[in-house]
């Protein structure tokens, strides 16, 4: 996150403290999707539960706005709030006898950034622009439309083999494009750690 954005966020937060709803709306629109997916991925929480939890975090964020002191950034405040809530939820579940599959792990601000929709979107958009048209089409249908290779082949009237080739090509280009921008995956780190 750039310094400029951080300053902008602090300004918006000051606006929100004065009861200006547009500032709250901004934070919600900006962070809500990422926070939901974050809680789902990191703590394997059910979708409905996650939404309620994140909405409660925002509710508290608004109601307590005068009391809240931001020491790092608004985004880390929000993500840490969701993390703590998720852990509380898991503890409660554990007490009720549900086995926890994954324990949350502290992570850097860098990792948080990949949970900010607009930032990740921008990053992908720029990288996807580097792909040849057909290649990009295959990748988007596969990753964003959730289609199986067989269906992509049918839709684009090409062979499944061609789809696989295009997909491999796309991954090859994208991994290089995104290499410098995206941090290593937390899950992967954990995977290696466990190994």
């Amino acid at each position, binding site marked *: 996150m750039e310094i400029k954005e951080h300053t902008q966020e602090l300004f918006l937060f000051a606006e929100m403290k004065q009861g200006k709803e547009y500032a709250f*709306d901004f934070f*919600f*629109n900006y962070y*809500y*999707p*990422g926070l*939901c*997916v974050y809680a*789902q*991925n990191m703590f394997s929480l059910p979708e409905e539960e996650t*939404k309620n939890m994140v*909405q409660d975090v*925002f*509710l508290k964020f*608004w*109601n307590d706005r005068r009391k809240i002191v931001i020491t790092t950034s608004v985004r880390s405040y929000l993500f840490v709030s969701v993390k703590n809530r998720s852990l509380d939820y898991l503890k409660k579940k554990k007490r009720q006898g549900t086995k926890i599959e994954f324990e949350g792990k502290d992570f850097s601000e860098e990792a948080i950034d*990949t*949970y900010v*929709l607009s930032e*990740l*979107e921008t990053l*992908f958009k720029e990288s996807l622009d580097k792909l040849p048209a057909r290649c990009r089409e295959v*990748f988007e249908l596969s*990753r*964003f439309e*959730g289609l199986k290779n067989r269906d992509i082949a049918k839709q684009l009237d090409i062979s499944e083999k061609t789809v*696989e*080739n295009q*997909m*491999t090509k796309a*991954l*090859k280009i*994208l*991994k*290089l494009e*995104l*290499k410098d921008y*995206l941090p*290593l*995956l937390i*899950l*992967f780190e954990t995977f290696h750690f466990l190994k």
Partner: protein
Amino acid sequence: MEERNKIYRLIELECGKLLNEQQQKELNCWLEESSEHQSDYEEVRKVLMYSQRLDAMKKIDVSNDLKQVKAKIGKENFIRKFYIGFQRVAAFLIVPLMLYSIWTLVGEPLGNRRNTITKSTETSFGVRSQIQLSDGTHVWLNSGSKLFYPEEFSGKKRVVKLLGEAYFQVQSDKNNPFYVEAGNYMVKATGTRFNISNYPDDIEITTFLESGKVELVALEEGKERSYGRLLQGQKAVANKANGKIATYEADGEKHLSWMNGELMFRRDSIKDVARRLGHWFNAEVVIDDKRLEEYVFTATFTNESLEEALRLLSYSSDIEYEIINNQQRDDSSFAKRKVIIRKGKK
């Protein structure tokens, strides 16, 4: 190319958590072949995971969920505002409420509390009763009479209402005069003993003062107007029809005899006798001869029956009587006994 295709498919499957044991083994073997493979794996996996994450985030309906949160905020705000408003109202009301409770707790015994509950006591024919009112006043009710009185006296005036005959022994309280409402008149007293007769069929209201002072008043246009005072031993007779009030020296024994269970006549006109016999025995007494109107009677009855009383009266005067026992009316109820008095044949 072939191998890479295969490995990338395996990584894709792994991201979707769709990898089976055989495939996992295959992937692990490939990973262990070289560190190059490992970094390749990491990078591809990153692309896949982040694209998956981006897709998941895009699918969330942010504006709808924002509406939900705003609704929750609105609800909480309303509860908060209501609570704050309630606190303010409570704070504003606490002092008056406290004063009110102190006033009702402490102020009540000091009086002035309004109590409009009206009670009534009624005596049937042949029965007399005595009651004590909340201010200590004693009232003796003659037979066939009714007294209306408040459960507790309030305000400046002590007011009761009488139908029939009663003797009052009023508790002295000069600040709160005692009023007996009888027809259009009121008898005002402070601490006295007097008898009032005001039966519905009476043509006169008779007030006899045994001791103390009473004043006859009437409410005219909301104001009290005096119709004169009575002295001890006097009686006032107010004509209900023409409103005339006359004062006489009276025979106390006669007016108060009913309290001892005596029906006493002292040179009373036959009309008077007929009326009082009627009240005493619950009968309708009719005089069937105008010539009898001048007759006066003196007698005292205690335990005599109606027939015995009439027989005794007929011994001393030239009268005849006829008793028609209670006849059943059309509606199955029984009429009063009827007595017809005629001039005798002597």
